[in-house]
């Protein structure tokens, strides 16, 4: 069995999207820690929540890069 260039393209796409794993791990860790902080100190939840959203959007960045690369390939 031989692989054409089209098959190599799809393999490259799948490898590029693998890097989303790190982003998912980071986001889970971040939100878990934020919830922990709110649980320990519920009064500051109003200040932690926007920071958590911002951090989640930043942690998502690498996944977005992977997506853009996968779309371009």
């Amino acid at each position, binding site marked *: 069995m031989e692989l054409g260039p089209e098959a190599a393209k799809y393999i490259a796409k799948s490898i590029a999207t693998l890097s989303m794993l790190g982003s998912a791990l980071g986001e889970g860790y971040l939100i878990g820690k934020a919830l922990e902080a709110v649980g320990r100190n519920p009064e500051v939840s109003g200040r932690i929540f926007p920071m958590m959203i*911002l951090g989640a959007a930043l942690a998502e960045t690498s996944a*977005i890069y992977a*997506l853009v690369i996968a779309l371009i390939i």
Partner: protein
Amino acid sequence: MSFLQINQSIPDLKPDVLFNIGGFPVTNTMTLTWLIVGLIIVFGVVLRKSLQLEAKSKLQLMMEIAIEGMIGMLDQITQNTAKSKKMLPIIGSVFLFFILTNVITLVPGFTSIMHEDAPLFRVPTTDLNMTLALAVMMIGLTQIVSMKSNGVLKHIGEYIQIKKVYDGFKKSIGEGFIAIINFAMGFLDIIGEFAKVISLSLRLFGNMFASEVLMVVMMSFSAFVAPSILMAQTLLVGLLQAMVFSILSAVYLNLAFDNN
């Protein structure tokens, strides 16, 4: 192929050229950009005319609440109300512009007006040129602000630290070598500025383009009910990314102010 599915082609990375003005191509993302800019300007002029000291109109009250919210958000970054009021015009208008561009895709039929077999309007943030231009503008602004608050020579000295190496060797050999390491780090900071531009622009572009592609994929899967979930997500992501872009540029601007 059933009536439940709508097959569209996945949107191209580059926008379609509608026509040329003196050799300058006008794309369908540009038309929508200028339409939104025009809308904001008209809105501003109309609101400016009807301003009252004691707000009676609902529009004025709404905008006052929005601007106070923005100042509150900037205060969390700058910890200084005078500084955040100074930043508000640029950060606030970028924020408003991105909210409008990201949400306008949800207006039904808006992006399906055709002009010579290409859509007349396309969401500006799904074009990398547009987000890259705004990111370059914001980072360029931070450089100018930093030059203004520190002086041009000191600002360039932050990146090419020749003076610090000289001072370090004058004190002792050990400090001189630390200064040489810092000298190399200064060049990394130059790369860091370019990385800021790339990450700011690609984040916004990637999110909005991905939601567009996902919508096409979802439409070919089922044209009813399922895309509405994605549309709600697009609304959330659009607002969030507009906020992230403006908050990050506020953080960079704040750092540029703080250098002295």
